């Protein structure tokens, strides 16, 4: 159990990074896991180049995995290019989370990343990759 709720996950859950709202974001989306009621809204501000992620904020509530994963995500993507994050493989986030997840908990873990991808693809006018479209519809991301 102590393996599951690793110190770093509990830390992100209890002290979420990048928590809060953003005025006039360049990209924004929200999602919800209807199975367990996890909710996440992510807002992104881009730098003047219109490409670099300058700031990421999230609001939400739900289980420790969904909220900690989204908090970790905000730290991971800051300063990277929107195009890079839009195609970021989920494995990079899962490695950071670093615990074995059952299929049910995997959806909690990927909620934030799915929301961020939808936000960025919509802002850029690019289509969401097919491997994320199914999850986006399952997690009611819009």
């Amino acid at each position, binding site marked *: *159990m102590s393996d*599951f*709720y690793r110190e770093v996950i*509990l830390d992100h*859950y*209890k002290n979420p990074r990048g928590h809060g709202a953003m005025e006039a974001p360049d990209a924004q989306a929200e999602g919800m896991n209807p*199975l*367990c*009621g*996890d909710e996440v809204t992510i807002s992104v501000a881009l730098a003047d180049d219109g490409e670099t992620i300058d700031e990421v904020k999230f609001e939400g509530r*739900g*289980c*420790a*995995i969904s909220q900690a994963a989204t908090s970790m995500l905000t730290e991971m993507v800051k300063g990277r290019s929107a195009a890079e994050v839009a195609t970021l493989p989920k494995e990079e986030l899962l490695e950071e989370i670093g615990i074995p997840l059952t299929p*049910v*908990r995997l959806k*909690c873990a990927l909620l934030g990343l799915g929301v961020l991808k939808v936000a960025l693809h919509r802002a850029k006018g690019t289509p969401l990759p097919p491997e994320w479209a199914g999850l986006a519809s399952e997690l009611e991301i819009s």
Partner: protein
Amino acid sequence: MAVTSPPKLDARKLRADFPIFEQQIHGKPLAYLDSAVSTHKPRPVLEKLTEFYETSYANVHRGVYTLSERSTAEYEGARQKLAQFVNARSEREIIFVRGATEGLNLVAYAWGLVNLGPGDLVVVTELEHHSNFVPWQYIAGRTGATLKMIRLDDNGELDLSVLDSIAAEGRVKVVANNLVSNALGTINPIEKLSAWAHEQGAIMVVDGAQAAPHKAVDVQALGCDFFAFSAHKMCGPTSVGALWGRLDLLESMEPFNLGGHMIRKVTFEKTTWGEVPAKYEAGTQPIAEAVGFGAAVDYVTAVGLEAIEAHEHELTAYALEKLADVPGIKLYGPPPERRAGIVSFNLGEIHPHDVAQVLDSDGVAIRAGHHCCQPLMHKLGVAATNRASFYLYTLPEEIDRLVDGLHKARKVFA
């Protein structure tokens, strides 16, 4: 007059019948507190399935050879056991279905599509499982009927004071309710609702999935018209259940599934239906599962439904008392004397998934989620709850382990 003490069962002894308990989960004995969703299977049921496949299996009804006759006798024997189990007047009133869900869909489609229309009311309750809610919402929408809801009071019990005002709004044609709520354990006043439904000229449709495994059921005493339940929640196999219905209704209703076995005569122009229950059993049925359902009825009957009910009642009272001492806990549902072996709760702000995950690491299995009761979760103002549920094999020390796990979860998320 002789005073009879309530019947007792020996859960520790019964556990030896269940091979699943011979293992450890994360190095701890399995404390399975999720029987409301599905129960484990005792050896007599597992052995019956194997024996049937090894000695008697063939498709039923159509064969003229010995094996098919043997298989048919076992299948129809199970129907007889089920008829007796719910006190049906005839075994023809038992339809084998895939589970309670399919039984309730059968009524909604076969009865509802033909008999409902604009101005008609379908009355459900805020306590319904989606299986006795969504089919009615859908069929009401298809036919132009109106869906009405009986709401809950703060105890998690139905507020029957609204019945008259509902009746004033149109023709009540269907009343749908579970005998026992899967989410809160509330035991509902079906007798009263049946009487009211019949005064309105409505049919009374009962979801018995959470009741049949845990207490003696008498459909005559309940006064209902349909009663659906599932084998897998009462020590039987998955993929089979039973719908009991009044024979006159089953005979006058349209069929549900169409195909082989349910016909009398088929020509290019027209098909006529077979006799009840064949009329509702198109295609190859879950034959071995139905036979296993019969074995499950034998098993729970031998243990004794009254003893099971008393055992669960004792566990529920114990659990509610112990859980009330856990700081930050919020318990949902009625007092122990009016509920079955189900306890729903939330632990402070800790998400039920996180609570269930911490408990799993100690080998304690509970359910966390909306329990297929989203309207009820909305009413309670939560996205999900934790739910512990008990059965004939549950031990009091498993409830102690649940409580210990909750203290641990509080520490982890403090």
